[in-house]
């Protein structure tokens, strides 16, 4: 098994991956007819799925709070996130897990849990409900995380001032219920019985209210921390199309998506990752579209993660992707809500990590990385041209420098004589061999790129231009590199920026170096060996059960949206490899107006037998 080990280490081949048992499989029939496009039969698997819509400890409308609170807790128990949630201060033996009836005890426990005298962020406000007799109470929130105005107006005010309208008869077991139902005009409230839930809630910006004589607390939604407003997408810019991008706030992000897809079938599920820091991770999918097996697998992978902290979605990406050692990304990261929604409508699953403006979409296949949402926004002929250019750019990025090295040092007979002689003349004063020359320039280009990102503010782009131009010019003037090489490196650099996905562009750029080395060592033979191995590894990859080169190999029914983007009215099917529950986007005749007798109303997109 040495070979396996080496292949694993050297080539990023991760062995038969751990997820080998999961396959978003075609039916056997479909596999047999690998090339026949007629097949539209899908996995009719479990049409009667039950989607448990789980929301973490947040009630819906006040009416069914009791049930909602219950499900919220139940949902969190099997997630395994509860274990070790408590901060280390709460020694299990010392403090009770459950909220006590005595208010003072609760206050002490809270003080201990939050390290109160030291921790200045946590505010405990004691007050008295103006009932008859008065009920002592206190509330806990974190300054900065909670909206103080909201607390003043919709918690303290009603509780302290308005409760006296009622003639109460002392503390009754249903005080809290009463308060909850009649005196707390907050839109999201929840009953909590465990201290660890209180801590979690308070840490995420809620306000917890404790009453004397109550064995539970009430948390009211008062999130009011500062976050960035919705801004234009920075990394994926388009000329035509929506400009807004995701922000760091999880709720805003889900809202951005929901604003585009008005469907009651769009499900947002919450999972928590991280032992030390409960990162909220949301999963979004369309219940009537996405293959349930895919959703299950996403949840299985995220739940299986044992780590203490997710810094960004990139960390989660590494934790859940199939081939972490591969150069190519297998999860689409995007900051464009429109892209996320169009992908959701293709049957993908979105994973949103709190505090990250990048949303992940799975499965991510090679061709997804070459597509941009703009392809669909421009006219279809332009869309085709954009994609062709991009595909060309991919090949240039990977192969152009390698080709130059191979031709210039191995296959000089191929170069037209005039060109060859001028290359030879240009190299007359150059002291380095071609390979050193090209590595020098490629590395300085990478340097310029990296510095351009790091240099603060407005200098960045300027530095890029100045750096490349001046460096290149000076290098030529100093006879360190030949002029033709500057062209090669510049074209390669440009092409790598034409690839819309940042991670994919990075992967391709890195591959370029591998190919340069292969070309320098073995010429075209090296390049073709590299291509073959790359091809085999790519073919062997899977992203969440879907083969990485999916619509091409294995060939599946065309969704008319691969290299050539067909006009919108011809894209009738969703990608076959997604194994969606509903395969059709639109009926065969999607433009009802082109026929005269289109009087009867056409089915909407959910109607699979549209015609």
């Amino acid at each position: 098994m040495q070979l396996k080990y080496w292949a694993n280490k050297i080539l990023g081949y991760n062995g038969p991956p751990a997820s080998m048992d999961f396959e978003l499989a075609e039916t056997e029939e479909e596999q047999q007819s690998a090339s026949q496009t007629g097949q539209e039969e899908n996995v009719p698997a479990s049409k009667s799925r039950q989607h448990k819509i789980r929301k973490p400890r947040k009630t819906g409308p006040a009416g069914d709070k009791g049930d909602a609170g219950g499900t919220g807790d139940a949902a969190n128990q099997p997630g395994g996130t509860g274990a070790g949630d408590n901060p280390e201060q709460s020694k299990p033996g010392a403090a009770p897990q459950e909220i006590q009836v005595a208010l003072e005890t609760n206050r002490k426990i809270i003080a201990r849990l939050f390290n109160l005298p030291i921790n200045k962020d946590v505010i405990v406000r004691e007050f008295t409900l103006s009932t008859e007799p008065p009920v002592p109470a206190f509330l806990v929130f974190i300054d900065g995380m909670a909206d103080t105005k909201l607390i003043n107006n919709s918690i303290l005010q009603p509780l302290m001032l308005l409760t006296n309208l009622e003639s109460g008869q002392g503390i009754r077991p249903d005080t809290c219920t009463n308060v909850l139902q009649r005196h707390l005009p907050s839109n999201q409230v929840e009953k909590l019985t465990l201290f660890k839930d209180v801590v979690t809630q308070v840490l995420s910006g809620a306000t917890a209210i404790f009453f004397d004589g109550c064995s539970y607390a009430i948390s009211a939604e008062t999130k009011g921390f500062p976050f960035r407003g919705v801004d234009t997408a920075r990394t994926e810019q388009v000329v035509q199309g929506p400009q807004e991008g995701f922000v760091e706030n999880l709720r805003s992000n889900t809202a951005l998506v929901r604003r585009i897809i008005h469907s009651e079938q769009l499900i947002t599920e919450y999972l928590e990752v991280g032992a030390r820091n409960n990162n909220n991770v949301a999963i979004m999918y369309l219940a009537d579209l996405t293959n349930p097996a895919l959703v299950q697998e996403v949840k299985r992978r995220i739940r299986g993660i044992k780590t203490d902290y997710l810094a960004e979605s990139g960390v989660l990406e590494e934790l859940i992707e199939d081939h972490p050692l591969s150069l190519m990304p297998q999860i689409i990261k995007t900051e464009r809500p429109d892209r996320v929604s169009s992908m959701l409508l293709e049957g993908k699953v979105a994973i949103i990590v709190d505090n990250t403006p990048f949303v992940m979409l799975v499965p991510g296949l090679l061709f997804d990385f070459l597509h941009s949402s703009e392809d669909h926004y421009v006219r279809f002929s332009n869309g085709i041209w954009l994609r062709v250019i991009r595909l060309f750019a991919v090949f240039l990025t990977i192969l152009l420098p390698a080709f130059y090295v191979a031709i210039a040092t191995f296959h000089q007979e191929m170069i037209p004589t005039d060109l060859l002689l001028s290359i030879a003349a240009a190299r007359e004063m150059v002291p380095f061999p071609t390979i050193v020359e090209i590595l020098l320039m490629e590395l300085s280009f990478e340097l310029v790129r990296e510095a351009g990102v790091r240099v603060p503010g407005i200098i960045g782009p300027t530095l890029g231009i100045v750096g490349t131009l001046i460096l290149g010019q000076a290098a030529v003037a100093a006879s360190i590199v030949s002029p033709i090489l500057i062209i090669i490196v510049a074209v390669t650099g440009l092409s790598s920026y034409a690839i819309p996905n940042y991670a994919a562009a990075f992967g391709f750029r890195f591959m370029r170096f591998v190919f340069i080395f292969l070309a320098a060592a073995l010429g075209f033979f090296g390049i073709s060996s590299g291509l073959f191995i790359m091809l085999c590894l790519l073919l062997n990859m899977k992203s969440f059960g879907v083969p990485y080169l999916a619509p091409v190999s294995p060939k599946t029914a065309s969704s008319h949206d691969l290299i050539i983007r067909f006009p919108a009215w011809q894209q009738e099917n969703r990608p076959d490899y997604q194994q969606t529950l509903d395969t059709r986007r639109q009926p065969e005749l999607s433009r009802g107006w082109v026929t005269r007798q289109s009087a009867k109303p056409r089915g909407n997109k959910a109607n699979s037998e549209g015609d």
Partner: protein
Amino acid sequence: MGIINQVKIGQAEAIALLVTVMSTKLFLTYPLIIVSHGGSAAWQIVIISGLVTLVFFWLILKYIERFPDRSFPETAEYISGPYFGGLLVMLLLLPWLFELTMTFRRFGEMIVIIALPETSIGLIMLIFFCGAGLAAYLGLSTIARACHLVFPFTLGAALLIVAFSYSNWDTDWLFPIFGNGPWITIKEGVIQSSAFYELSFIYALPLVFYAHQIKKIGYTSIIVTTVILTTMVLAYLLVFPAVVGEEPYLPLYNMARSVYLGRFIQRIEAIFLLFWVISGYLWVSVGVYGLCHILKDWLKLPDHRPLILPALIIIFALAFIPQSLPDAVLTVQEYFYEIGFIAIFGLPPLLLLLAVLLGKGGKNNVEK
């Protein structure tokens, strides 16, 4: 048997795989061998051998239909007992190994001639060995998909050579119409059907195909291969007269060399090397995979992967036995192509005959 579930490949991929491996020999000596036998009538040899192969395949199909659920070693042992059956498996494996070795070597020589005249062939073959080994390790579905993906490009590259060399075509080279004589043409047509010997993949590894597709896979791939081979041999004959056509080691390379599309585009043969090398890799990885897979079936192992490295080392060692390039070519020409088709296409009919005589397989097998 408690084996890791059997990989299956779909119809299009299977056809691409078989056509790729059967027509890859075009890039090596195949046109040369054919032309040296058939002269100006070489293209007829290809057609005849294609037809003969179709007949062979009909027999193979009968055999496979009789034993649909068994691998080749299982069938051989089931019909003729473990010892004679083992002998039959050896009869399949040895020519396979021989051809694999020789082709391995010839690919190495091809690269030395075309691209790296001063590099040691050992290194080139080592790299070949790594790539092919990796592909064989990744498994048949990867190889088959690679074939399916690469096939249009290799075919396109081959057709491009044909199109580019159009200005050098001369229909006179196709005459005399019967070449070295019709009898020689027919005889060689039968003998050269061993050029299709990669078809033995179908009956050696029948379980990787979906049973009801085998018929279509076989016939389609034979016909497609025959068309491709005939086209290329015909184009080769149109560019080079038969006397000259017998000479080069790499006919297609010579054809690519003769391309002259003006001052800017000439001597572009190195571009085609990209495609030839990739199909070479595919050929070798299919061969290695097949070899290891048959061995696995024979030895009743759970997985073929541990066999790859030893198999590669043996192939690597054997490939250096011929001293020189002409040896490597002529050995193949003399021994393999002359008798190879009997050894390889003779097995299924033999087994079929035995099975009929002994009354094994067939309907009673199905009922069971």
